[in-house]
């Protein structure tokens, strides 16, 4: 290589002559330098041993570098198949959105309408009874890459789609009038995992829904009759959690202009919706054994503790609490909490659909986070903790699994607990060790949690991981002796005792780990980007149904770019792929589905999407 024409640096600009000599010697390797500088360099090298050595070093390292080129790494054999599949996927997006438009203009129709596109997919909890349309186009396998390593064809033979039980995909768009509309399509086959995702068809149904403000996140109820909207009213200081009944009778053509009318009928009051009976008898594995020998010091006792009692590490602050009073609006929407900030990604319905829990803190910053639970049909959500240091991890049956930040001589760590929202009983499970925000599998065998230290957040009261690891570990079988308080009685080698396997390490903002409901044969883990926690990477792993071992080496979905909030349900995972940062394309909704016959992927509508879980 030769680089010519570089403007010579002024000779008097160097801090010393040796610096100048080394720079010129290195520069001369890449082409001629100014004649005067070359003469000066030669003179200097003749009298300076160190600079001569540097000159020789440059030449030697060049030879060494070029020797590396002889050891050319060999690309994976399937690199072309993967690339061709990705290109074909890109092509399918372009075909749908218009190939001649620039990537930034893929959403031009929406931009022209000055409308923000908000897509919310309601898939994870839909049942077959909720299939809204049969107008499903068979995904095309044409052009999908199925060959591996041939490196030749970009248009390999068509793939055979994998049939799946019909599943409805729903999303919400916001039109130019600011009105939200639910759209949906039914999916009954996907393309094999080794090919690229199939494309879905246009929406089969389209009807308005009044979200009563800005929708930040939307959760679909298991019975399909309601959605829970986490909104911020345009300001993060005035957040709310609202329950809306979904009216699915106002069906319109997908191409029809959005109706300016509000939702077809006022929503029924929440008490009118069917309420699954509370299940106060959870079947949870890690429940402390009643035969646990009490230890002399810890308090409170291991016997169920009233949830209103804060963990021992932090006295309650009665003056700081979230206003959760019900505020029915004219259209029947019920705010189960308002003036709150929902914290983290763990909010979810219980597996039975009887409860919805979330972590929230007052929007005015007067207190830290607590866990709230809303029983379907109630007028408001209730605080399950009041220590302002607790966050939701997930559910086991209808029992909440949470954790609270505790101060130890070694810094701020976590103690986890289980909490029955029906009986309002809180029980510490210190034998689970230092586990923050544990997400436990349906059988209570293992959990994904943060093992390490926590830090107080700066921008608002609360806690976040500081140093440590996000791990998969045993949940109910720790070797540490159970105690009747939140603190382990003796130091333990938690990593060894709990067979912890690291998922990610280092400081992180947020994550979201969820298990496939009921069967528990899949585990999805999303880790937020440190810069923007609304984006992250999503992976999906298989779990052996017999021994619960997670297939760590063969992820079904491996660190795919995904926006915060995904849905995992029996047989499917749905997530929102963000638009590339460079504006070279748009995002979209993807679904990975599996059956005992195979697995595969399918794309839904492109756009800036938020997936409901």
């Amino acid at each position, binding site marked *: *290589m030769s*680089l*010519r*024409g*570089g*403007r010579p640096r002024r000779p008097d600009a160097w801090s010393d002559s040796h610096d100048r000599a*080394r*720079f010129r010697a*290195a*520069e001369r390797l*890449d082409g001629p330098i100014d004649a005067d500088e070359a003469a000066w360099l030669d003179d200097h090298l003749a009298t300076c041993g160190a600079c001569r050595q540097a000159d020789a*070093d*440059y030449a030697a*390292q*060049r030879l060494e*570098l*070029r020797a*590396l*080129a002889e*050891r*050319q*790494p*060999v*690309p*994976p054999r399937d*690199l*072309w198949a*993967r*690339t061709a599949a*990705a*290109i074909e996927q*890109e*092509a399918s997006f*372009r075909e749908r959105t218009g*190939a*001649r438009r620039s*990537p930034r203009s893929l959403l031009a129709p929406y931009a022209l309408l000055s409308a923000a596109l908000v897509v919310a997919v309601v898939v994870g909890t839909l049942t077959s009874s909720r299939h809204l349309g049969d107008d499903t186009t068979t995904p095309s396998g044409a052009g999908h890459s199925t060959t591996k390593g041939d*490196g030749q064809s*970009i*248009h390999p033979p068509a793939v055979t789609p994998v049939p799946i039980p019909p599943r409805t995909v729903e999303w919400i768009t916001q039109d130019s009038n600011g009105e939200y509309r639910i759209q949906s399509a039914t999916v009954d086959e996907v393309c094999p995992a080794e090919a690229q995702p199939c494309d879905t068809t246009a929406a089969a149904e389209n009807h308005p829904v009044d979200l009563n403000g800005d929708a930040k996140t939307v959760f679909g109820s298991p019975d399909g009759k309601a959605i829970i909207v986490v909104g911020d009213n345009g300001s993060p200081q005035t957040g709310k959690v609202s329950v809306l009944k979904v009216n699915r009778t106002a069906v319109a053509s997908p191409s029809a202009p959005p109706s300016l009318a509000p939702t077809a009928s006022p929503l029924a009051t929440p008490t009118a919706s069917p309420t699954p009976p509370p299940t106060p008898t959870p079947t949870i594995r890690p429940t402390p054994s009643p035969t646990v020998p009490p230890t002399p010091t810890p308090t409170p006792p291991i016997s169920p503790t009233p949830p209103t009692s804060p963990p021992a590490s932090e006295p309650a602050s009665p003056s700081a609490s979230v206003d959760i009073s019900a505020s029915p609006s004219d259209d029947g929407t019920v705010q189960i909490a308002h003036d709150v900030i929902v914290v983290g990604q763990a909010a979810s319905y219980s597996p039975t659909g009887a409860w919805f829990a979330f972590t929230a803190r007052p929007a005015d910053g007067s207190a830290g986070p607590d866990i709230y639970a809303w029983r379907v049909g109630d007028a408001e959500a209730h605080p399950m903790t009041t220590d302002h240091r607790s966050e939701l991890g997930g559910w086991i049956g209808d029992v909440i699994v949470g954790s609270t930040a505790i101060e130890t001589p070694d810094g701020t760590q976590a103690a986890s607990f289980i909490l029955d929202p029906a009986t309002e009983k809180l029980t510490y499970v210190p034998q689970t060790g230092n586990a923050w925000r544990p997400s436990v599998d349906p059988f209570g065998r293992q959990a994904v949690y943060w093992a390490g230290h926590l830090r107080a957040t700066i921008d608002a009261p609360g806690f976040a991981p500081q140093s440590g690891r996000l791990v998969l570990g045993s949940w109910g079988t720790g070797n540490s002796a159970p105690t009747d308080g939140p603190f382990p009685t003796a130091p333990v080698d938690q990593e060894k005792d709990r067979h912890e*396997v*690291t*998922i*990610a*390490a*280092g*400081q992180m903002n947020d994550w979201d780990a969820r298990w496939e409901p009921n069967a528990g044969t899949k585990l999805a*883990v999303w*880790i937020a*980007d*440190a*810069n923007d926690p609304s984006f992250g*990477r999503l992976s999906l792993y298989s779990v052996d149904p017999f021994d619960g071992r*997670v*297939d*760590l*080496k063969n992820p079904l979905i491996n*660190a795919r770019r995904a926006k915060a909030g995904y849905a995992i349900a029996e047989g499917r995972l749905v997530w929102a792929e963000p638009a590339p940062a*460079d504006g*070279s394309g748009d995002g979209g909704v993807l679904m990975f589905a599996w059956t005992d016959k195979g697995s595969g992927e399918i794309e839904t509508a492109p756009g800036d999407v938020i997936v409901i879980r």
Partner: protein
Amino acid sequence: MAGALHNQYGISRGFGGGAAVTGAWEKDAAAGFVEELFAAHHGEIYAYLIRMLRDPELAADLTQDAFVKAYRNYNVLEKPENARAWLYQIAHRVALDHIRRQKIVRFMPWTGESHGAAPSTERLVMDAHLSGDLQRALEKIPERQRAALLLAELHDLTGLELASALGVSHVAARALLTRARESLRQALASERAAEADAEAQADAAGLGMTDRTGTGGSR
């Protein structure tokens, strides 16, 4: 080379008679263009990315990303003869974007290996290719300098190609390369001094030579 490239990417694909690719985006033309580009250059792009990132799977993923980006944007390439440098430019940006993200949060691949487990076969093979004090020294210099050295010395880019790939002027590319040589010299000296110390300590302890080849897990 330029003529070959011109024929390879321009005339055979009918990009305006080879004068310029810039223009309307056409699916078939883009696919054909990238297909040929991949056949000609995927090996060196993968090699560049694996040398930059030292992660075979990641390098494969980013190679794929680079070619997809080329597919998306093939119509902005002004001169077909610049396709190789343009492709390196895309790969370079993809690599730097990744490195930038990794500096903030370090994701550990969930391989199922417990702490202290033996490295994977894939890792061992890669280390055999890339091991040694030179590679370690390369890792210690700034990414842009490392990229400049790799592109210039291992991937044999011309001065103009290097400037194009790095997205800087010709003068800036040369200055960057010059600084990179000095940075590498210092890093290499430091690496070799540390290696000598380690060997001396091992000799003193009667343990013989320390394995610094990269395949013995000494790092």
